[in-house]
């Protein structure tokens, strides 16, 4: 008699392999049990040359769980396929119900995976992706239309405006954005002044650093910084908030209560962003110019007074205001995409994360593309 890791005692009779289960056949011993059962010797053929039988005695088995019962069944099936019928004896009463339940469950046929057709599937995937992109573009445009009509409705009938929500979102997207936006704008101003000063000093044209700073910050850089920070901060928050509500079926609940998610969730967010974005842009511009002025003073000894006087020469009314024209448009794009992606969330927590990433990437992309478009537009109409 051999003892194999205390799980199975093997003896051989004429034409029959006698196995006695011992110890516990459970999840914790499953790896050893698998090895032990695999290593069980095949029974010798009997006198008549018939394939041998296996007798498995479960009388001394201390503990059995689902995994043990499953391995028992796999052993039975495998031996039977090799023409060695298995006779299981001495099943303890407390194990009967378990074996019964597991074996019945194990009989359920697994669903066969779909047969694969690689080439066909690849072509189909390309087609599906193109269709999806086209459809998404159409849907985004129709969502844009819906947002515009909802905004118009609110403007026509200001009573429908959710004032509390509007103020709340203005606070969160505007006021609370000031520290980080201020810090980054200041640093950008400093860096621009530093780089400009280095180059212009070689030409002896230090004072033109003011022109450089004034034009680039007021026309392009201030608004871009603001838009990128707002997209990363507030656009993503919109998607995550609305997306989580979607997962919890809160959006469905709103609809059944006769409340319009567009009016309740989208309009206050988009409107709040459109109202605070010009203010944020103005603030970012001023702080960046201040950063530039500080750096000019340190590096080039240009006093604040000189800085302001010099700045009035190249800067006209339009230079100072184009950013304010762009700001509400960018705000509309960022807010709209944030809410749109949030409403597209489906089911899972993972989808919230994916949509949030998408919303930030898409809105920054669109902001930069629109900014280029504005540049062309403004230069053709000479402002």
């Amino acid at each position, binding site marked *: 008699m051999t003892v194999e890791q205390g799980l199975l005692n093997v003896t051989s009779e004429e034409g029959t392999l006698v196995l006695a289960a011992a110890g516990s056949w459970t999840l914790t011993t*499953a790896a050893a049990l698998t090895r032990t059962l695999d290593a069980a010797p095949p029974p010798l053929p009997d006198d008549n040359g018939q394939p041998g039988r296996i007798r498995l005695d479960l009388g001394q088995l201390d503990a059995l769980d689902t*995994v043990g019962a499953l391995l028992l069944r796999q052993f039975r099936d495998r031996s039977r396929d090799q023409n060695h019928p298995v006779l*299981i004896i*001495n099943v303890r009463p407390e194990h009967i119900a378990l*074996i019964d339940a597991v074996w019945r*469950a194990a009989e359920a046929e697994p669903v066969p995976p779909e047969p694969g057709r690689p080439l066909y599937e690849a072509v189909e995937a390309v087609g599906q992706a193109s269709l999806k992109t086209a459809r998404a573009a159409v849907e985004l445009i129709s969502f844009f239309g819906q947002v515009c009509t909802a905004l118009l409705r609110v403007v026509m009938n200001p009573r429908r405006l959710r004032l509390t929500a509007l103020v709340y979102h203005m606070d969160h997207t505007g006021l609370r954005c000031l520290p980080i936006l201020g810090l980054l704008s200041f640093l950008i101003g400093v860096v621009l002044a530093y780089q400009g000063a280095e180059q212009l000093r070689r030409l002896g044209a230090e004072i033109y650093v003011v022109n450089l700073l004034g034009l680039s910050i007021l026309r392009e850089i201030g608004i871009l910084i603001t838009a990128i920070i707002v997209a990363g901060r507030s656009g993503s928050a919109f998607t995550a908030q609305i997306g989580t509500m979607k997962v919890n079926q809160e959006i469905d609940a709103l609809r059944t209560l006769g409340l319009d998610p567009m009016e309740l969730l989208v309009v206050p967010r988009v409107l709040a962003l459109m109202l605070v974005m010009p203010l944020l842009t103005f603030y970012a511009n001023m702080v960046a110019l201040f950063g530039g002025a500080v750096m000019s003073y340190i590096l080039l000894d240009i006093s604040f007074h000189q800085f302001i006087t010099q700045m009035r020469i190249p800067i006209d009314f339009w230079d100072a205001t184009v950013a304010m024209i762009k700001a509400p448009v960018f705000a509309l794009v960022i807010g709209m995409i944030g809410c749109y992606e949030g409403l597209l969330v489906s089911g899972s927590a993972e989808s919230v994360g994916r949509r949030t990433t998408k919303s930030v990437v898409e809105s920054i992309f669109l902001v930069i593309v629109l900014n280029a478009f504005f540049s062309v537009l403004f230069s053709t109409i000479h402002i």
Partner: protein
Amino acid sequence: MTIDVTITDTPLSIPRSEAVSTPALPAWPDSVIQVRGLVTQFAGHVVHDGVDIDVRRGEVLGVVGASGSGKSVLLRAIVGLIRPSAGRIVVLGHDIGTLTGSRRIALQARTGVLFQDGALFSSLTVAENIRVPLVEHTDLPSSLIDEVARVKIAMVGLPPSAAAKYPSQLSGGMRKRAGLARALALDPEILLLDEPTAGLDPIGAAAFDQLIGSLQHGLGLTVFMVTHDLDSLAAICDRIAVLNDRKLLVGTLESLQQETNPWIRDYFSGRRGRAALQAGS
């Protein structure tokens, strides 16, 4: 006693009557969950004030109580998700309050929890949900894990096609079953269920009760079950604990009907309570 079972090509046929006539219940030599003087509170709002309970090995304990009386909080305290303000909770001989690190993880692998709303991982399919604890806590080969997941799905009465579905594609009752399958993944000794039959149709609820009863018999589980379902209480619970006025009172369906406390009397002696008791006996 032992019985001969001959396994042939036909499905295993075990004399059910014999299995039932010799129940595998031990004579409660020990209690697997001991709670002593439990006090829990949230920001001054006391939920439990001196709760004592012993859950015996192999029993099904039903916990009832008004909505908001702290049943879910009790369950969360037992699994260690909430730190009580006072009292001791001992699970399988380990004090939850002092257990840390790998010993705590090892203990958690011996208890299975089904939360009130399923709490399935929404980005994984049902089969992947069941694989999670198996992959984390065992070193079984992947093929065996797949097989175990398949068996658990069938054991809780889900169709095989549910395996590849995501939780958001399942009905409420199917999510409950999938949650149960995940709770059973590691063959725990203790199963804690929070309102497993809430939101199921009566036939589905009865089938779920039967499922829990048969799993409890077959796997030798101890079940701690929060429920409002009087039919479940009558059908499968050995004892019933009532959470009332921040305290816990333990008894059987019959003994609790004799209680003088108005809430308990109304609960068990109302029309529905009596009907369930009659049906159960």
